[in-house]
């Protein structure tokens, strides 16, 4: 029998060892830690599912918002409707109806149950809310790429100017925007007060506006960055003959964009979307730490900031590890959904 060659393993060894030591082992360790309570000083103590239960668990409300009898009836109606929808209806409307019925069922359940850690769900909501900036940022990147793909004088200078914010250090940008958003002296409110005497909103001091402020800042910082460069490359791969043919057929610019440009850059869009979702879930920490410290009243606290606080301020390592794995499951789930959704919409 032939012996297997040793050479490939020797060449792979440094990379594999590094991966095992700095990636695989910490991942496995964090999974084990998610089931323990550990404050770095005393040995880890096995607590089973406690950490997950404290984050995701529900308890019965002391005073339900609606009478129990009515709640049970509503739940039963939801179940019957859901069964009917699944069994009888066909077509795309089935998914929408099923989602609607599920939402009603969850709403009814929440009148009887309350989360053990309501703040965790709020921070999860913050994380999803901040992801709303992603499509806006992508749209701006694509728009800038389309504009910068034209042959205009000083095109390279414009490309540099739009790309610069993405390479400036993060903390510098956050401190700059912290002053731009200042309620009394900030640039934005100073301009707003010229046309509106009451002035602008209390951006970073207001629970309603703090997240929107971070979204605006993020769009400014990322619109002209790597995404724009990726779109530029994609646009340059679009065959100009397609545009010429469309033009000859009488298609306008907007129609050409929808029918030719947008489908041709769909692979790039899919990539940017997935990377943006992953980055969006993991991000939000640095801006919150520098600008708002997660406030006001937790309005800018994301899951990553929550993990940092629990792990490195309160030294609840087990809880932080559990939250990390919950975050991982969310990112994985969304990425898979996105992949499935986009796979039928990508044009090669």
């Amino acid at each position, binding site marked *: 029998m032939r012996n297997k060659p040793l050479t490939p393993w020797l060449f792979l060894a440094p990379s594999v060892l590094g991966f095992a030591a700095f990636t695989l082992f910490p991942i496995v360790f964090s999974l084990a830690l998610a089931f323990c309570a550990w404050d770095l000083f005393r040995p880890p103590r096995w607590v089973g599912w406690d950490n997950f239960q404290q984050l995701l668990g529900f308890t019965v409300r002391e005073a339900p918002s609606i009478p129990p009898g009515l709640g049970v009836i509503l739940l039963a109606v939801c179940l019957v409707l859901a069964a009917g929808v699944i069994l009888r209806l066909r077509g795309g409307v089935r998914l929408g109806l099923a989602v609607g019925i599920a939402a009603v069922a969850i709403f009814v359940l929440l009148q009887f149950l309350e989360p053990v850690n309501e703040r965790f769900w709020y921070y999860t909501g913050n994380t999803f809310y901040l992801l709303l900036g992603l499509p806006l940022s992508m749209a701006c990147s694509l728009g800038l790429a389309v504009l910068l793909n034209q042959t205009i004088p000083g095109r390279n200078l414009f490309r540099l100017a739009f790309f610069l914010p993405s390479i400036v250090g993060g903390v510098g940008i956050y401190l700059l925007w912290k002053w731009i958003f200042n309620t009394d002296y900030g640039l934005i409110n100073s301009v707003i007060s010229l046309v509106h005497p009451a002035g602008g909103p209390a951006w970073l001091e207001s629970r309603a506006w703090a997240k929107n402020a971070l979204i605006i800042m993020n769009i400014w910082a990322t619109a002209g960055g790597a995404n724009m460069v990726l779109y530029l490359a994609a646009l340059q791969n679009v065959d100009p003959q397609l545009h010429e043919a469309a033009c000859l057929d009488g298609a306008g610019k907007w129609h050409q964009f929808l029918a030719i440009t947008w489908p041709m850059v769909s692979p790039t869009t899919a990539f940017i979307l997935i990377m943006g979702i992953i980055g969006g879930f993991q991000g939000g920490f640095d801006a919150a730490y520098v600008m*708002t410290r997660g406030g006001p009243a937790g309005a800018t606290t994301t899951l990553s900031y929550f993990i940092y606080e629990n792990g490195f301020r309160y030294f609840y390592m087990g809880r932080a590890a559990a939250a990390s794995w919950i975050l991982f499951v969310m990112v994985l789930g969304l990425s898979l959904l996105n992949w499935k959704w986009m796979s039928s919409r990508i044009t090669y």
Partner: protein
Amino acid sequence: MWKWRSWIDGKWSARGSRPSPLRRGRTALLAQAPPARQWSAVTATRSFLGILLLLAVAGCSRSAVNEEPVTLRLMSAGGYNRTAEEEAVARFRAKNPGIQVEFMQAPGRDYYVKALATIAAGSDLDVLWMGSGFGLFSWRDALLPLDDFLRDDADFSIGLYQDAVVDWYRHRGVLLGLPYGIDVQAMVYNRAAFDAAGLPYPTPDWTFDEYVEMARRLTAFGKMNAGACRYGAGVDKIAPHYFGVSLLSEDGAKSGFHGKAAREWLDTNVKLLRGERSFLRVGAQGTLDRLSEFLQGRVAMVEAYSWDVGDLRDRARFPWVLMVNPLGRDGQRAGWASSSGFAISAKTKYPREAWHLLKELVGAEMQVKLMATTVPARTDLQARYLETNDIPGANLSAFLEMLPYVKIAPRIPELLEVSQENDYWFELALQGDDKTEDIMDRLEHSTNLILSTSPARQ
């Protein structure tokens, strides 16, 4: 057809191929060479053990021959204390020439987190500054007990230190740190602002309601007169002790925010900070810190701490006066206080040397040097506090007059989390979206939940 032999595997991969002349010669040479030594498992094991033994001997002899000098690592927040700490270290090194001392500095806001992480990671940290975050360390057994050192060291007299302040560094009867100073809080007001508004100055028996009324009138005056103090008073939040409540119960086991008084405290904060805006919320988004707002003349009254004296003396461009805290609505006077001191890390490799350094850092010379920023912990030095900080008209005796009224917060391991929780609900109340009654109930509930489920106590 030739196929290349794999020289690592030592196998012929060709079938029916004729070896090259070079290979034929090599094969012949190998056939004549003596048989290769056979390595048995026993031989390999003996060789391995021999190498281990050699390494162990080399390691021992190395440590015996090349002893590194003792280096102590001292962590503090720096700032005002840095010069005094350097002088204390210089005195220590003069008495112990073979010992090096390395400074580690951590920014004020994250000092406790960094110190805890450094100790937890097993990094070399020997002596560390210790203040109100003592509970974070004591509950986690992160500090070295000092009772044995005190018993064995006749040169150090703990009796000279104020008993109540030394007790702040005891955990379950064990002494884990030593103080050099007492940080006290009083009020400071801008005398020129009061003169301009035509208001009488605060007096020692002033009440909380009088304080609020003065602030309202100063704010109203500031709105109408350019150049005057814009706000009568500036606070991060109005202290709960004016309403007879506190963040935690006496034993630190549950929330102190319950009942009518707590709701009244929150309602007053919302009214003054958000509704009327007669108080400026300092340190929040868009405002400077408490002392800067006062020194810039934007705010007429703020809370003052003993460490502010130097800045007040050097940077204020108007006459200022300290005053004891107003009497609360319950008729009692109270104020924040803490102690500044040093402790030894439980993981130090040089406990005896660290003890000697600690003695220098909390000794008489250090306390005299820091009299501008903190009231000395030694009772024999407290009388010199006013002589040292002789600022005419400033009434620095207000800090000493507050000493009998100070309430030290319970030293709990969840201090950061409970404070953060309190800040969260407080900010939520200021947003005005929820009823203060609901917020107080939820604050009490969530604080009790944190304390009852804290892994640090289990």
